[in-house]
């Protein structure tokens, strides 16, 4: 596995930071990979364009920020406008069709997924959008196994919310795999 540098962005409260922590924790605890997660603090983390960086690798990671991510996820227009230019040429740009209108071409594979729409249709709870997004990233990149994410969810999510999160994960993984093939 080559080094995977990822940036998840959206607005405060969408859960992109939680999703990043779950992904990195899954890599470290269940797949014996090396991972580093960091995030922006301060006013921009509360509303505005939130950003979190995750690097996953088989070898030590020293510089902890993903300055040129090969995977960029944008869940809002503001996040897209702010961050789309940082993607590494040839990278993967994932956006949500409901929230983001992709305007300009970047040198990346652009995958636009109706994450929010499908979450609302099939689960009906917008709070699991972040886990659906995480599923899609895992389905697209295969950076970790969905089962590893499930194990972290079991550990981190209150029992009464586990089911909807697990369903959101499955939904996202399926959407990601479809888009990858």
């Amino acid at each position, binding site marked *: 596995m080559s080094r995977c540098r990822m940036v998840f962005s959206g607005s405060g409260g969408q859960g992109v930071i939680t999703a990043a*922590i779950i992904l*990195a*924790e899954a890599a*470290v*605890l*269940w797949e*014996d990979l*090396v*991972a*580093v*997660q*960091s*995030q*922006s*603090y*301060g006013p921009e983390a509360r509303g505005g364009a939130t950003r979190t960086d995750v690097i996953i690798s088989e070898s030590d*990671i*020293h*510089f*902890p*920020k993903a*300055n040129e991510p090969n995977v960029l996820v944008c869940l809002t227009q503001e996040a897209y406008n702010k961050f789309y230019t940082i993607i590494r040429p040839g990278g993967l740009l994932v956006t949500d069709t409901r929230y983001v209108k992709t305007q300009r071409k970047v040198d990346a594979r652009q995958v636009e997924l109706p994450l929010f729409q499908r979450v609302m249709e099939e689960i009906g709870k917008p709070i699991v959008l972040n886990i659906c997004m995480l599923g899609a990233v895992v389905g697209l990149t295969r950076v970790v196994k969905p089962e590893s994410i499930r*194990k972290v969810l079991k550990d981190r999510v209150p029992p009464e919310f586990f089911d909807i999160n697990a369903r959101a994960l499955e939904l996202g993984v399926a959407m990601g795999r479809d888009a990858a093939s």
Partner: protein
Amino acid sequence: MKKNVRFVQGNEACVEGALYAGLDFFAGYPITPSTEIAEHLAYRLPQKGGKFIQMEDEIASMCAIVGASLTGHKVMTATSGPGFSLMQEALGYAVMAEIPCVVVDVQRGGPSTGLPTSVSQGDVNQARWGTHGDHAVIAMTASNHQDVFLMTVEAFNLAETYRTPVILLFDEVVGHMRERLVIPEEGEIPLVERLRTSVPEGVDYHPYLPREDGRLPMSDFGGGHRYNVTGLFHDMWGFPSTNPGVVKGLLRHLLDKLNNNTNRIARYKEYFVNDAQVLLISYGASARSALHVVRNRRPRGERVGLLELQTLWPFPVDVVRDLAKAPEVVLVVEMNMGQVLQAVKLAVDDPEKVFLANRFDGSLITPTDIRNILRVIQGKGI
């Protein structure tokens, strides 16, 4: 899942290290970017019978841990620059009264309230000279979570060994980022416990009468012995004295006990230093970027090495002088205007070959920043 493997913030690694070392009293006042230390200890300390107190401010926090230490507890507080400023008075008291304690400063941009959520390493000299008067102090740092844990344990050990405050200078990047931490088994890292006096209850105890090896056994305050503790210059009874001989003797002791053991207190890591033409000297989060440069450039034949300092004060002069002899260029990488740079220049034989690669805008210095500055120094242009 492997045993004892955790995925945590640096601040949590500090908490785990402190608990491993036997911390049982914490007093503090939350401040970004150190808040998670207080947050986690508020939860963890009571579970193991320790005490957590949220104080009214940092002055009181520092005073509380000094008092608790004197009664026989292993103590810590955690803060950031603005709070660290408020702690300086009581920190000096702990230096003077020789009270073991650990003070964590997770650095953010300063001066004043500065940049609450951004990284900096601007408190290096504050750790050294923040409190007034001639004194010596121990300050340590770390660049990754395993080392944050280890240096925290070491800080408690050194505080007990030398009866001194030990400052842990972390930074926002290391404090907030998450990475793997493997918690060592009990007994894997040796712990230094409080050296208590063997003088029986009811027999005169001299709190400031050194043993042959220079160490001062303590007696839990409020326990078996009555004695005096003061921030004034004091005699072996702990009572104030202006006798020039006593003053001179005490100040010499306070400085010598640390400065004469500089090499013993020095903690550092070497990467490819043996044949290095360019020696990077760095610490904390900056050392992560410096190490990135070394790992990245070595396979391309560039003879660049890294000395990562983990003890900043007392400054490891001998280590730096020796390693800086052979390289043509010494580049200090830090996130301030050159605080460790000055110490390096004083330590080496030829200070004109020492340069600074820094960043002080609240952003983590990048490997590209370092490489660009190095190219300019080497006359290659950016």
